[in-house]
């Protein structure tokens, strides 16, 4: 097709709304965060130049549990990839076999995805409460004997808090990944599935040799979402553990803590910059891992 001279202007006009949003909310703040991270600043008064001091204090364990928060975020990412995604894949494969009530199970599994995170957080606070559902169930089945001596699922410094935050994450997001993967399972042509079965393959063999290899792209997308989602996680941690918790701290709760409670905008900006670097590093690493397998 012949090129028109006005194409340049047309392209620009069509890109304009997206570009404005992108520059105003993503690019400009990024630059400003990078700049502010070298200052001590409470948002109102004068900025005091610190050089790398904010970054140094983040890597000094005695001052701010930043390393610990990164470790927590990585742990959540690991749990998501190695527990949540296999579970989602397993459920998607079972549903993809065309069993009775397929739609019902699909709907039920996706339901938690649509429920407000605040509701989920508050609900699980009650479930993990010392007098809540989990302990009551454990007492009922006889696993716990003494109602006065029960596990402190939500206690700071008891070693359980981060996992108590992970369970609701799992509860909420397995359905999300399950539905993504279910789409992949269903995109395998029925003829292919039946051909394999005529040749005598079992359901498990069909899943393993035909369905899973064809789902690589979707699994990659799921892994990227699960990892970056874990690194960004804020809501459930802030609700269940609170932004003041050190044990279950993740970079975003630290960011919010230093910004809103302590007005340390420079330090908060440094956390933001490191969080971005972490997210990019992880998504590049995932890309590389999947490329190698090709």
């Amino acid at each position: 097709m012949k090129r028109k001279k006005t194409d340049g202007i047309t392209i620009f006009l069509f890109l304009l709304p997206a570009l404005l949003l992108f520059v105003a909310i993503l690019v400009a703040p990024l630059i400003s965060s990078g700049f502010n991270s070298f200052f001590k600043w409470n948002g109102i008064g004068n900025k005091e130049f610190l050089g790398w001091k904010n970054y140094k204090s983040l890597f000094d364990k005695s001052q701010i549990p930043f390393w610990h928060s990164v470790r927590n975020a990585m742990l959540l990412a690991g749990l998501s990839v190695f527990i949540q995604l296999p579970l989602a894949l397993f459920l998607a494969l079972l549903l993809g076999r065309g069993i009775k009530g397929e739609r019902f199970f699909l709907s039920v599994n996706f339901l938690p995805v649509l429920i407000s995170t605040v509701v989920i957080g508050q609900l699980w606070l009650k479930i993990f409460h010392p007098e809540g559902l989990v302990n009551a169930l454990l007492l009922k089945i006889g696993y716990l004997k003494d109602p006065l001596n029960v596990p402190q699922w939500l206690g700071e410094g008891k070693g359980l808090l981060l996992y108590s935050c992970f369970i609701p994450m799992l509860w909420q997001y397995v359905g999300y990944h399950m539905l993504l993967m279910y789409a992949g399972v269903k995109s395998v042509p029925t003829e292919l599935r039946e051909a394999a079965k005529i040749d005598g393959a079992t359901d498990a063999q069909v899943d393993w040799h035909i369905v899973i290899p064809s789902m690589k792209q979707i699994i990659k997308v799921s892994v990227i979402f699960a990892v970056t989602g874990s690194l960004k996680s804020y809501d459930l941690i802030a609700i269940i553990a609170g932004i003041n918790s050190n044990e279950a701290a993740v970079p975003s709760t630290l960011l919010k803590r230093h910004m809103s409670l302590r007005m340390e905008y420079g330090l908060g900006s440094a956390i933001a910059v490191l969080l971005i670097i972490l997210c990019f590093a992880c998504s590049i690493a995932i890309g590389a891992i999947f490329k190698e397998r090709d």
Partner: protein
Amino acid sequence: MAKQKGFNPADYQVRKTNKAMAVFTWIVLVIWAIFNLYPLYWMFSFSLKDNQQILHTNKFGIPDGWPSKWRWKNYAEATDTGDFVRMFTNSIVITLATIVITVLAAMMASYAITRIRWRFSETMNKIFMLGITIPIQASLIPVYLVLSEAKMLNTYIALIIPYSAFSLAMALLICNGFMTQIPKELDEAAYIDGCGRGRVFFQVILPLMKPAVATCGIYTFLQCWNELMFSQTFMNGDMMTLPAGMQQLFGSHTTDWGTIGAALSIATFPTVIAYIMFSRRIQDSFIAGAVKG
């Protein structure tokens, strides 16, 4: 196929799923469904009890007595403490506006990237896709400072613009998937008929992109409806969205479980009802995003 001559179906039976395996599948799925549903059922059941029942005498199931004896006044107390109608309205307005802006911006950008040939279209697309990786939290402080400077905190715009920006990358990814499936000949036919780019976009492409709108809408909804960090920081008083407002509510109200349960149920019911009504379409649109994206 089975009706073809000389074909004996018995020789080529599709291998039947093993009975034991089918039962196992069912059991796993039922257990998982219970794990999904029971916490919600438990939440609803304790919204109708008093603390005595919740904490001591009746922890697991339906409230004591007939429905007339249940503590419906928990709901009255919950609606007295928080203005749910206002919170829902705020959330709905913000989410809808975000969806409209995101979808329109993404469609236009996608049109420029996938349907007009120019040198840097691929690069442009890759730059936009960085938005999937950049965490929304990274913009919190700078955007907050700009908004407070511009005296725009506590307005709908304060959340709509950042939400749109952060939903954009995903929406663009989905739009590109849909857009590349529309045959190029359609545009060319329209050009020959003398249409400009603008008319082609609005009158030829947009009407064909209806399924993409639904899919983008679902993904954008999932990103904005629950967002807590920005709305907690930018909004206060009666401008708070449902997540921020609820979180505030529980800060002051933590001992009376029944009231909390009622508040949680009120916040959940509209979503669940909408989901039950549209579950198939929601799932299909979500799946379309996964396949095309």
